[in-house]
């Protein structure tokens, strides 16, 4: 793949509503660390492609001025370099795998490994390595594509991605349906992080806690999990950040599903008038109750798109 891609495969993230919401929710989760750590002192590491949407967001919100975008596609390098929205963004012409060891730093880092690809053992190794190199108080975010393969090739592809893992549990294509696959993906990522941090912790007392677990669908089924690494003795201090006060911050195996309802602006404005208090039992107009409920969970983050002539 390297060197051949001259077009980004990914879609323009700026206009994908669920991704947009996820980004803002993650931003909000990260901002909770501000109670114990100056946010502008964080380093941001991501995969900015040519859009750098997350970079812009984190720079504008926190004033982070140490930002590194990993770009393994040689053919895209020039364009990525040209599209950097801020001077503080460094584009590194290297794959995530090759970059991680050299990203070891004492500076707390927000690292978003925002993969387009489906989870495989290589990505799991990268998560483990990230857990090894990130400083305490860092936040590691991983996004993977969790869409089931076409029915007939599921087991074959699974074996290609994970070798002989879970031989007994995964032997029929039906074992890799949407929900089962999501659970497996989550369990694998969680285990990779728990193991790597566990082994590291023997050395330096670093532990992890899960901060987020999102699923959403902007076309493909996506899965995002975020973890905080911190020193064990700081557990109480970290508690004071109050991550659990955010309804969308999930620390367990049940994901928060980001479902963006289809609503007109008029409908939104009308719903907004009864938020945040109370449940919307009797939504105005012809709005379905479930749409109104979904909206109430993410009305703060949901984008408003306007066609502007620039």
């Amino acid at each position, binding site marked *: 793949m390297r060197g051949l891609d001259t077009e980004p495969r990914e879609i323009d993230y700026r206009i994908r509503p669920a991704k947009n919401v996820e980004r803002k929710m993650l931003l909000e989760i990260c901002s909770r660390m501000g109670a114990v750590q100056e946010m502008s002192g964080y380093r941001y590491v991501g995969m900015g492609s040519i859009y750098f949407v997350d970079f812009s967001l984190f720079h504008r919100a926190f004033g982070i001025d140490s930002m590194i975008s990993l770009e393994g596609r040689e053919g895209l390098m020039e364009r990525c370099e040209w599209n950097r929205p801020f001077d503080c963004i460094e584009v590194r012409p290297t794959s995530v795998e090759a970059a*991680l060891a050299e990203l*070891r730093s004492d500076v707390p880092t927000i690292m978003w490994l925002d993969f387009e690809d489906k989870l495989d053992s290589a990505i799991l190794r990268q998560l483990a390595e990230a857990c090894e190199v990130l400083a305490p108080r860092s936040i590691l975010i991983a996004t993977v594509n969790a869409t089931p393969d076409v029915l007939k090739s599921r087991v074959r592809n699974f074996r290609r991605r994970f070798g002989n893992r879970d031989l007994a549990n995964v032997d029929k294509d039906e074992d890799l349906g949407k929900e089962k696959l999501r659970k497996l993906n989550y369990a694998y990522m969680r285990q990779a992080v728990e193991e790597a941090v566990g082994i590291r912790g023997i050395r330096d007392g670093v532990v992890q806690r899960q901060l987020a677990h999102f699923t959403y669908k902007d076309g493909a089924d996506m899965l995002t999990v975020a973890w905080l690494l911190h020193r064990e003795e700081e557990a109480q201090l970290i508690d004071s950040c109050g991550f659990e006060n955010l309804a969308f911050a999930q620390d367990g195996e049940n994901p928060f599903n980001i479902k963006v309802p289809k609503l007109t602006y008029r409908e939104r404005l009308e719903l907004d008038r009864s938020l945040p208090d109370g449940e919307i039992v009797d939504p105005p107009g012809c709005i379905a109750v479930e749409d109104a409920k979904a909206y109430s969970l993410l009305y703060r983050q949901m984008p408003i798109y306007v066609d502007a002539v620039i």
Partner: protein
Amino acid sequence: MAGGKQSLVVDAEPTKDLFIEMLVRDIDLRAAILDLVDNSIDGARAAVAQKSGKSASSKTPLRKMFLRIETSATSLTLTDNCGGISLTDARRYAFRFGAHKKKNIENSIGQFGVGMKRAFFKLGSKFEVASTTRDSRFVLPVDVQKWRQNEKWEFVLREVDDSRQPAKTVGTAIRIEPLLPAVADEIGAPGFSTGLLDEIVASHQEAIDEGFELTVDGIAAAKMPAVLLRSSEIAPAKTEFDVNGVGAPVRVRLVCGIGESRPGEAGWDVLCNGRTVLKSDQTPVTGWGGSADQRLPSYHNQFARFRGFAYFDCRDASRVPWTTTKNGLDQDSPVWRSARQRMISMMRPVIDFLNELDSEHDREGSAQTGVTLASKVATAKPVAVADLSSRSVFLYPKATKAPRVGNVNYSRSREELARAKRVLGVSSYREVGERTFEYWVKAELD
């Protein structure tokens, strides 16, 4: 049986024959001698530490400490100046079977309290230990045959003297004579002394590098301090940390980078309390490919420059990651597993660099612009591991990517080209092409 109220005591005392047999069964001759060497080096570290008033560590300079081993067809003698065995230690520890728990020499390599006795029984039918400390001296002569026959489990120290002794006399002299027949054959065989020396050096290079003088039949072990290449653009990764847990913390030092290209020396050396337990390892044990976690490629000769050193030191010898035989690595040790994860992370940039160096080598012949990586490696200087400063990630120069070029090719009449050559003041068609193109670029593009 009627009544059944009577008791009968069965004599369950082990016979000495059985005991000796069990003790020496699983150890070979050289390993038995190595146990004695371990004792001397432990003693040397303890003696030096006592003198300098701080706790012993493998950084302790062992200058002026020595162990001389002499072999003959009938005898083996080991003479050292490594502090000697005190009367208390002799009574409570050195000649008891199974060491007294409390007496553990800090940062020691011998921890199980059987080595010395086992070596004696393995090697000879008579032995004598003469030991002098600053405060006492004694001699222990043992005739193994007589000792076997004696029912009592005891040794008798002779010439016991608990007055102040001159510093020059401090040390231990062990004489094993006569040797058991099989042992005599092996020790008398040609090449035994050099083989033994090699084996000792393989385990104790660290102590030797710290100045410990070791000779076998007059041949001295050579210092070969670990070195890595360093320059302004190349610098090894070096990190130190303590692993806490139950008991004393384990000090871990990890160093890795590049050295001379020697396949036999490439890989990781692992040392526990100064003793080498793994030498030039190129297997999944130290993270090379083939392991389940597959984070790195398998060893291949393009990595012949790779050097890594992992040092584990602890006052409590049971916490460093070695096996109970002290000559192997305990891969299940949590301390080891945690260090290994860090080692793998440290190796990655070195591997990346060596891969680039290798692909540069493959490209040789094609146009090379700028300074090559190979020339940068050539100008790096060897630096002793102890003199390296800390840095968390291996520093290396990135390959300067040659700008991608294309060729322009066209034909013009010779008369035209000759005129152009004259006007441009050049002597080849190639230069005509280059100059005219540059002229156009300057006029239209710049």
